[in-house]
């Protein structure tokens, strides 16, 4: 029978999310909480009402707009820098060798470590946050583009060359399409890092934005607002990642099942 | 009584969320001890499934298979298989891979080691004992597969299109070596292949299996003298044999092409 097996998967998954939420909701009604705990305990319903309240008052939209701007600017810069640089590193071995230690070191270092420095340089406005987002997003893009370019099939390049194609045509017709799956995968990773960058960037020294909202809610003992913010980020992250994955699948339809195991 | 007896064997695959696929229905055959038997048939006709039943990994839904008079209860050391995609454990050296069957049998290390070394030499891989599968060519990998299967000294050697993944020259070479090894050991070999020529060249008998669900369509004896050599492939008798096998196969191929249900 088709039906029961197909339903099993979403049913189990859904239950594993719904049941804990329900249990969470039920806790304060069942267990008496110590006075101190009441300060930082909240329930899903409270979180939902907090979110609603924020949206109705427009406060949410304001903060969201700031974070969105930081996210988009940072991501945009990362694409503008990461893609061309990745292609350049892929094509020119010497450049690649020269920059390799720097890229490796910067990639391995958690971006967070630059935050105090970035705040010194860019101040507490949006530009330090844009910088954090940029630093987080540029490396997956750079590295994946690089990998994509390096993995170009030499045979295809020769085929196209034999038909009289010039360098830029070779890049356009062979290198880029072959590198595209890598680039899109890099983009998917970059988005996750960018969102994280927004959150963390706004944590330390900010006066607006969703991350700031979360941090200040925590200091003001408003766990419902805090979780509301976290929830929004989670939803955004999931939506964006899944969208990119959908695009990724469409773009890589021609590929035989290759390295992407996860 | 024949050494291996399959009587009216049937097996149906029932994958989740899809329609049931009958792989075998009413397959009967007999194999004499020490015989080299080939199974040819269209894709999906169940030849590999039958091999898996002989190995003991699958249980038939209908009918019965007996070896030496006893029904098959699961994998045992009197049978061993050589797999088409080699199936070598990538994290083990050549030697360790050959030792696998012996290890599972509980043979002590020293004895395993000695026996494995012998077999590595037998299949012509001396010097490669410490190599890893990813360092070997296709032909070399299959030699390891063969050595591994021979290590437990099984009575029955099951070979599932073992040379299909190899290039033509390596394939010819492996065929000759297989015949030589078999000639010295007199094991019973059941060989599944798509290649009519390969089946005719290697076997004592060729069984043509019908299109899915598989059953025995035709049994064709090969009366060429042994030991076989390459020139026999050019003789008129050989060509007649090939033609005969091909005719039987052709009908089954036509059946398979039209209205085929995708395999599970």
């Amino acid at each position, binding site marked *: 029978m088709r039906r029961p097996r197909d339903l099993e*998967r979403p049913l*189990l*998954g*859904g*239950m*594993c*999310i719904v049941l804990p939420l329900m249990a969470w909701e039920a806790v304060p009604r069942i267990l008496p909480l110590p006075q101190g705990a009441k300060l*930082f305990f909240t329930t899903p319903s409270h979180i939902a009402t907090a979110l609603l309240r924020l949206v109705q008052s427009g406060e949410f939209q304001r903060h969201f707009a700031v974070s969105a701007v930081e996210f988009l600017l940072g991501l945009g810069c990362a694409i503008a820098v990461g893609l061309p640089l990745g292609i350049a590193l892929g094509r020119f071995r*010497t450049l690649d*060798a*020269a920059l390799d*230690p*720097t890229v*490796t*070191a910067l990639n*391995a*270092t*958690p*971006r*967070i*470590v*630059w935050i*105090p420095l970035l705040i*010194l*340089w860019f101040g507490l406005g949006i530009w330090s946050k844009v910088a954090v987002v940029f630093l987080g997003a540029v490396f*997956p893009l750079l590295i994946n583009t690089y990998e994509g370019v390096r993995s170009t099939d030499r045979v295809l390049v020769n085929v196209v060359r034999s038909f009289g194609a010039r360098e830029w045509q070779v890049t356009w017709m062979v290198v880029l399409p072959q590198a595209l799956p890598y680039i899109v995968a890099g983009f998917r*990773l970059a988005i*996750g890092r960018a*969102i994280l960058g927004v*959150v963390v960037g706004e*944590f*330390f020294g900010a006066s607006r934005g969703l991350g700031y909202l*979360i941090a200040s809610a*925590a200091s003001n*003992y408003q766990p419902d607002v805090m979780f509301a913010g*976290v*929830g929004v*980020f*989670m939803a955004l992250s*999931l939506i964006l990642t899944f969208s990119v994955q959908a695009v990724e699948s469409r773009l890589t339809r021609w590929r035989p099942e*290759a*390295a*992407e*195991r996860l | 009584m024949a050494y291996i007896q399959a009587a009216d064997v049937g097996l149906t695959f029932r994958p989740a969320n899809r329609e049931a696929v009958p792989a075998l229905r009413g397959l009967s055959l007999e194999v004499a001890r020490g015989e080299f038997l080939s199974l040819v048939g269209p894709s999906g006709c169940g030849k590999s499934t039958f091999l*898996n039943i002989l*190995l003991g*990994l699958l249980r038939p839904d209908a009918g019965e298979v007996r070896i030496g008079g006893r029904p098959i209860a699961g*994998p045992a050391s009197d049978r*061993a*298989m050589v*797999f088409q995609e080699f*199936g070598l*454990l990538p*994290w083990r050296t050549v030697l360790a891979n050959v030792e*696998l069957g012996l290890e*599972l*049998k509980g043979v002590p290390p020293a004895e395993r080691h000695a026996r494995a070394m012998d077999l590595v030499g037998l299949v012509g891989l001396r010097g490669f004992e410490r190599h*890893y599968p*990813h360092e070997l060519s296709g032909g070399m990998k299959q030699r390891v597969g063969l050595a591994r299967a021979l290590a*437990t000294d099984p009575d029955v050697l099951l070979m599932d299109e073992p040379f299909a993944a190899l290039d033509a020259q390596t394939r010819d070479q492996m065929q000759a070596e297989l015949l030589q090894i078999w000639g010295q050991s007199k094991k019973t070999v059941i060989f599944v292949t798509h290649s009519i020529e390969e089946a005719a060249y290697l076997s004592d008998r060729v069984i043509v299996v019908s299109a899915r669900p598989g059953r025995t369509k035709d049994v064709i004896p090969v009366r060429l003298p042994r030991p076989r050599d390459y020139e026999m492939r050019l003789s008129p008798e050989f060509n007649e044999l090939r033609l005969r096998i091909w005719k039987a196969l052709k009908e089954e191929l036509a059946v398979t092409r039209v209205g085929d249900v995708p395999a599970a």
Partner: protein
Amino acid sequence: MSPRRRLARRRRLLVGCLSVAAFLAAWEIAFSTVIRWDPFFITKPSLIAAAFREQILGGKLWHDMAVSAWAFTWGLSLAVLVGIPLGAVMGWRRRVEYALDPLLTALYASPLIALAPLLIITIGVGITAKALLVFLLAVFPFVFNTCAGVRGTDPLLISVVRGFGGRERDLYLKVILPGVVPYVVAGARLAIGRALIGILVGEFYASSEGIGFAISRFGDTYRLPEMFVGILVLMVAAVGLTEVIRKVEALVAPWRLGQQER
């Protein structure tokens, strides 16, 4: 490795080191002679080196590193102890994966760092909060990668071992376990990156010692050379750890190549 490849690798390394050295030299020379610079904004390599020496001799650097390392190790160990078995069960039992995967994916997508303030408020400043933060961030790569490793077991190899008379225990020990190892090591590489983020955020936010705290404190007091020392120490640690894992990966799984990024 063939002598030719060895030479090429040496040359690559040389070019890389030269470019870094050239950059540092240019930085030093430019800031010592030509450019007028604001010490509250930027510094130069010689000052950083002096601060480095001072901190090593003074002992504070060692102490900070030890504190951070302690919390890091605790959190990471817990992540391994919890993540790997959980991932294995998920990989082995399809239903468990169906049930847990959506929940874990949602959690993984959430910026769990945002919970840092809440954690610190509830548990208090100190090693427990930091270790817990590290654990929350580092556990996911282990879970997902172990699961993928178990699920990625080649069914052909299972047939092979069963065909040669292997029983359940043999399947685990001879096929599944060795097959999972490369995945787990790759997961460790990802986990380490995330763990470093956790340690830094924990120490930035509320701590009185540790490398992260040192960096942010020096930033607050505009002591740039000392701050750069902290950043560099962290960079070296990050690169060191990542390289070690890469070496382990190459050792453990020479037959595997390709990306395992999530």
